[in-house]
């Protein structure tokens, strides 16, 4: 019977032996990404910066430059106009952010400047206060969520495992942030969700491998840690790639057919799943070798693995 095998049975890759190169690669990538974030910055959406977004359908193929000039005169800060979909559909972003009654005035101004016959598909305004709040809330939410996941790992495994998971997560987040900066994708509340999803996928992936390492630590008491990690990685490699593939397939469907908004959200997730899978295999687990983990005495861990 035909079976699709992404990874053949019984691989014996020496992944831990290449830790030096892989870690250098990861560190280099992180440096590039963080560098870009610090130097080039992020392309914040109005969620975080405050401002106005109009998605409009303007009849009669207007010229972008004329539109820009018209809107530039309103004194609402920098104007960014983007065409999308059909040639008469535009997304207009104005940078100035205000609170209260000025918002309504500004919307009326823009509507006046664009004239009649325009269909408004979406109008959004975010005041500066809300913007600042969204940032701090998002950071808080993400921070606590990661912390909770790490606590769970520390309780279920050992603190060393938690530490390695942190390193892998840091790698994932740094690279995705970098991607947002290098290919200037708009960074908004949805992007935070994308990062979170990546983080939770990556940690999920890491836990599965850690689980196998924990099990093998108990089963092969005489083996060196390095060999145990290698063995566990190879044993789980098939599952790791299979699950990454099914997840990538569905995110890919989202990216291609999900429409503009969902596509913008799926792209970082696509990258994130690749990065997350990479970090689980090549960072989180090999790092354990440096952690001086002693073969476990029967304590804390569940007994399922021993009950053969």
């Amino acid at each position: 019977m035909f079976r699709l095998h992404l990874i053949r049975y019984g691989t014996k890759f020496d992944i831990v032996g290449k830790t030096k190169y892989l870690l250098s690669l990861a560190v280099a990538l992180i440096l590039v990404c963080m560098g870009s974030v610090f130097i080039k910055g992020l392309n914040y959406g109005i969620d975080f910066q405050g401002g106005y977004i109009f998605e409009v359908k303007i009849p009669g193929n207007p010229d972008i430059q004329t539109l820009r000039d018209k809107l530039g005169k309103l004194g609402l800060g920098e104007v960014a106009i983007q065409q999308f979909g059909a040639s008469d559909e535009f997304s207009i972003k104005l940078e100035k952010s205000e609170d209260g009654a000025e918002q309504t005035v500004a919307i009326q101004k823009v509507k006046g400047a664009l004239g009649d016959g325009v269909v408004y598909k979406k109008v959004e305004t975010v005041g500066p206060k809300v913007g600042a709040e969204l940032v701090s809330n998002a950071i808080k939410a993400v921070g606590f969520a990661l912390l909770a996941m790490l606590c769970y790992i520390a309780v279920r495994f050992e603190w060393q495992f938690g530490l390695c998971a942190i390193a892998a997560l840091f790698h994932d987040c740094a690279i995705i942030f970098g991607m947002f900066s290098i290919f200037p994708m708009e960074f908004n509340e949805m992007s935070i969700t994308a990062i979170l999803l990546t983080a939770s996928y990556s940690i999920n992936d890491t836990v599965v491998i850690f689980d196998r390492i924990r099990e093998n630590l108990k089963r092969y008491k005489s083996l060196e840690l390095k060999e145990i990690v290698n063995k566990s990685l190879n044993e789980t490699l098939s599952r790791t790639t299979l699950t990454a593939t099914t997840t990538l397939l569905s995110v890919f469907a989202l990216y291609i057919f999900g429409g503009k908004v969902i596509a913008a959200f799926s792209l970082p997730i696509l990258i994130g799943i690749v990065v997350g899978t990479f970090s689980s295999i090549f960072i989180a687990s090999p790092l354990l070798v440096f952690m001086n983990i002693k073969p476990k005495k029967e304590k804390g861990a569940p007994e399922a693995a021993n009950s053969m």
Partner: protein
Amino acid sequence: MIVVSKFRFLTTVCICLIGLIIAIPSSLDQKTFDKLPAFLQHTVSLGLELRGGSHIQLEVDMKTVEKEHQESIVDEARKQLRKERILYKKISVQQITKGGSTATLISLKNEKDADKVKKILLKIEPELEVIAEGAEIKASISEEFLEKFAKRIVGESIEVIRRRIDEAGTKEPTILRQGYDRIIVQLPGVEDPAEIKKRLGKTAMLTFHGVDEELETIPAQAGTRPKLPVKPGVMYLPEDKGKGVVYYVPVKKQVFLTGKSLVDAQMTIDPQTSMPCVSQKFDKIEGTRKMAELSSKYLHKQFAMVLDGKVLSAPVFQAVINNGTAVVTGHFTMEEAQELALLLRAGALPAPLNVVEERNVGPSLGADSIADGKLATLLAFALVSLFMMLSYGKFGGFSVISLTFNIILLFASLTLLGATLTLPGIAGIALTIGMAVDSNVLIYERIREEIRLGIRPAMAIAQGYKMATTTIIDSNFTTLVGSIVLYEFGSGPIKGFAVTLAIGTIISLFTTFSLTKAVIAIWLKKHKNQDIVI
């Protein structure tokens, strides 16, 4: 052998069937949906970005509230100090922080009075924090009290907002408290909320005052402010007379009657002038009595009806009003009179509201997003199913069954919990599809390993389940812990995403350990002695 007890099997089937029944209405078109019995007419509620509508975040202007409260304390304190014959150099409300917090500052002539003043202030408002340094006294409102205060004011505001929006006939508005001083108003189907925003922007505080007889009403051009005489207890308020003329009316500060005592307000036409006006009816007890009191005190004299610091009209009482009614005649158009009647009926806001965030989505964009989301989800389902069957053959097929029920149960849970499906939620569903098969992959891979070790297939399946359990629980719990925390602290789209992720995780645990297991157990029973290839 893996064994699924009869009880467990039946429970699993029941849950799946119930889920199916709950989820189906969401997938029907409107016509078929209307034919369903009422208890089945529940669908997943769609977020605003999917159904189109308007989302407005309002902030209660607590700084103004705080300042007004302080000013009322100062007014009261002045009276008390006079009564007690305590001399002071200065008493005022001042801003003490950059953020706009205010405090009452009193500087006394005699240091010895400080304790007495402290007592007086605390009697007026027990929640004050009073600090005395020699003859200087500073009284500020404590943070906790402000918070309590804000809570009450936000609660009252929500009631008033609801009445104003209901009066306007908007369907299914959602009005929620957000954080400390915020209110979120969601109006499905409303594309341009300018009207409603205008309506929410007004405090609509109606008050009745006497007009000072010694001072004169001063006419002025609109936009200019003439020099106005000052007299304690009297304030000049503008009255719009139309045609660019504004009268400044000397209104006594004392309030006789407020809009709180109103039971009804309607637009009517004044039979004499055939101009639109607003008739008001006050409640039987307080309103009627006070109206009678005011009208007898000011009989043949001028009084003023004031709305939000502007005089609506300042007529003369021609007779004592005993039936508790009044008519506001101003320079209204029909619409303005109707609007005023509506605002008066709905009651006054306890504090001014500012719009701090606004998001409007047209219905076409929402419909597009739903259509795209459906297509993407179906496609994700098809791709993952195909891949699973290519990888695991029959057993891949088993996980497709559980995947199907995963989606059905996810929709059923969203419907039951009344959770809102948002755009990130749709993405969450498609992702759940990708990740839901993970548990199956883990088990199947484990089974393959066991078979390679030479264990009999039936035994290997049992062993595979057993060995993978810890891993599955650990990995899913990590996700679950993360999404619960995310739900707790996140807002807006993050919350919506966390809900789908958490529910999806729980359901995939259920389908893996109940549904797929049951299907495999049944299949194994029928094919006891066959060779199993996974």
